[in-house]
């Protein structure tokens, strides 16, 4: 009787272990495949530093890299992450801590829907908004601002640097890309923050409010100790997610193979992988593998630092 149970137990456990292994196999296969092909490609295209800084190869090139797309990805991801966190975190506090309010409920539903949105529709939305505001934005804000800057900086070297970041916007630009990425990230941060705040033990919450301090202190100083780990993880995972996004950038950043101002079309590593893999030329396909390895490294670093942070705390 007991032996049958034991056997059944082993079989059952065995099946679960198998399932667990089966779930992780694809992950390792992808990582191994991309790194083995990617590292080989990077070496053949001129070494790591050359690959990280030079322009993408044309079919006639012997070497090349992902310099401009990499800069674009880093710039847009950083801006998108700051924007996504700056809006997502307070929103999460609102729907997590003040869940009795009517609007908080509506916000929770909205965020839950937004998190399931196909990211390409977010790109389309930003594209449409850009089309509406571009002219006025350029005429009344960015045109005068860049004119003032130009006047202030004159012919100095700084002007050329500043003109990379400030100026009238093209239809496709890095800021539209960053806005789309921020919109993708907001619901992630908001939902994780909300559930973290909701999981704060009731006695602790009562104690926090009971001290007699302001609500701000109770929310952001006392309870933060409890939720900080989850929120930081949310920020890092959210950043990792948007770093690899392709769809929201198709209509917003558009892609660029050259170093060019962020106010115009901007490259992204994911966009270059997509474009290069569509060509028949080996040098471009190799650069796509190298680019995939670079992108995966960025994402793995973000993800692993999130895990380390979680374990460390």
């Amino acid at each position: 009787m007991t032996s049958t149970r034991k056997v059944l137990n082993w079989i059952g456990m065995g099946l679960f272990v198998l399932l667990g292994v089966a779930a992780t196999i694809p992950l390792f296969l992808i990582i191994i495949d991309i790194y083995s092909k990617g590292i080989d490609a990077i070496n053949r295209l001129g070494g790591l530093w050359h690959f990280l800084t030079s322009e993408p190869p044309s079919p006639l090139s012997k070497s090349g890299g992902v310099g401009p797309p990499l800069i674009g990805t880093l710039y847009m991801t950083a801006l998108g992450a700051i924007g996504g966190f700056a809006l997502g975190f307070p929103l999460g506090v609102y729907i997590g801590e003040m869940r009795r309010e009517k609007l908080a409920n509506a916000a929770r539903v909205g965020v839950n829907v937004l998190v399931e949105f196909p990211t390409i529709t977010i790109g389309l939305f930003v594209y449409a908004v850009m089309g509406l505001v571009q002219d006025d934005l350029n005429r009344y804000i960015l045109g005068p601002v860049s004119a003032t800057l130009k006047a202030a900086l004159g012919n100095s070297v700084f002007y050329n640097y500043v003109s990379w970041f400030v100026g009238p916007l093209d239809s496709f630009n890095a800021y539209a890309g960053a806005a789309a990425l921020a919109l993708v990230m907001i619901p992630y941060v908001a939902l994780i923050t909300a559930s973290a705040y909701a999981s704060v033990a009731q006695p602790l919450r009562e104690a926090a409010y009971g001290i007699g301090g302001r609500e701000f202190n109770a929310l952001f100083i006392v309870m933060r100790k409890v939720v900080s780990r989850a929120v930081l993880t949310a920020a890092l995972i959210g950043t990792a997610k948007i770093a690899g996004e392709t769809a929201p950038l198709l209509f917003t950043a558009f892609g660029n193979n050259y170093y060019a101002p962020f106010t115009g079309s901007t490259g992204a590593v994911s966009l270059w992988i997509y474009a290069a893999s569509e060509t028949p030329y080996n040098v471009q396909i190799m650069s796509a593998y190298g680019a995939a390895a670079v992108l995966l490294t960025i994402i793995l670093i973000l993800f692993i630092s999130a895990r380390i942070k979680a374990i460390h705390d």
Partner: protein
Amino acid sequence: MQMTKTTTAIIAAVIVIVIVAVIAMWAGGTSRTQTPTSATQAPTPTTTSPTQTVSTTQTPTQTTTTQTQTTPSVRGVLTGAGSTFIAPQLQAWSNILENATGGALAVNYQLTGSGAGISLFLNKKVDFGASDVPMPEDLYQKYKGQFVQFPAIIGSIVIAYNVPEIAYNKTGKYLNLTSEIIALIYMGNITQWCDPRIKAINPGLAAELPCKPIIAVHRSEASGTTAGFTLYLAKTVPQWNETVGWGLTVSWPIDKLGRGIGAQGNPRVAAAVLNTPYSIGYIEYAYWAVNKKEFDAKGGVAYIRNDNDGKYYFPTEESVAEGAAAALQRYAQKYGAPPAPDADWNPVSFELPNPPKGYPMLSFTYILLWKNYTAEGYPDAATRAALLREFFSWVLTEGQKPGNIVEGYIPLPSDVAKIGLEAVNSVKP
């Protein structure tokens, strides 16, 4: 404690950004009224659009005195979009010219497909468009006189097949095909490789042709390649014209018989043919040329009969160029003159397939430019127009020379390039 610092830092960063933005807006708002004279390039009241362009950076100091040419003293990256077919070639041209000008001029070209290229161009989202089909007639009438279009490179479509028994490496021979046989295969009337009609024109391979069902691979999305392929069949096979017709997408009869495979993009059609024994597919020359070894191992690429002179042509640079020249000659005879740069190029596009001699399946890839970039409301139009003129003048002259052409592309005959140069010269800042 560490978390306090992080949070404080984040909050501080956000506050700083907001403050900077507010100050910048305030400064921008006041600068218009206070210091318009101090700025050397401040917006003048007459221009409604901002003066400083976005994708181009103007060098404020010009120290080079050795420059005697009229090359613009501007630097910049232009943006174009459209045809996936021309993308590798345009990227190569841009890289070569970028190196030649010391980084002063480059063209960022993104693959969106011909249809999206035309629409992005017409909506002024990009500086120029590229398309495998000319501007559609209704849009041509709407924007007539505002833009120019001209061919920049010739493409040709090849028929690749995967039949291990008659692979080139095994037999040393490529298959002969005619427009009628290709049409009948895609219509599902010729079902097997050992069909007597195929055997009749391939006496050398007749014994080896296997009695296996033919799988026909085609593009699944709207594609310029499909348009070129179906137009060729529609022009040469009346039965095809009546039942299927031609266009960027068509309803494939072979699909209804369950022997058709749809694949997205040239690379996947090529892969589908390579991975499916007894299949046939149409792909752009370049996608066959770079995978020639693999195709030769599993099958090959077909000689196509030109129905006008009855000869079989293998897709080579010479035979395709011969076809293009002959087709343009026929156009000039029919319409009395070679096509003008601001004319409707649809009739030209229609004349291209099935030329009097040469390889019969060919197409142009067109570049779309505005005639007047200021009138179209582009910021810093002068710079853009100057850069565009410089780039495309080079493309149509130096760019057509052998060292600057990517494998798989066919340079323009010089009289066609001349039409393009005329178009480029009519572009005003």
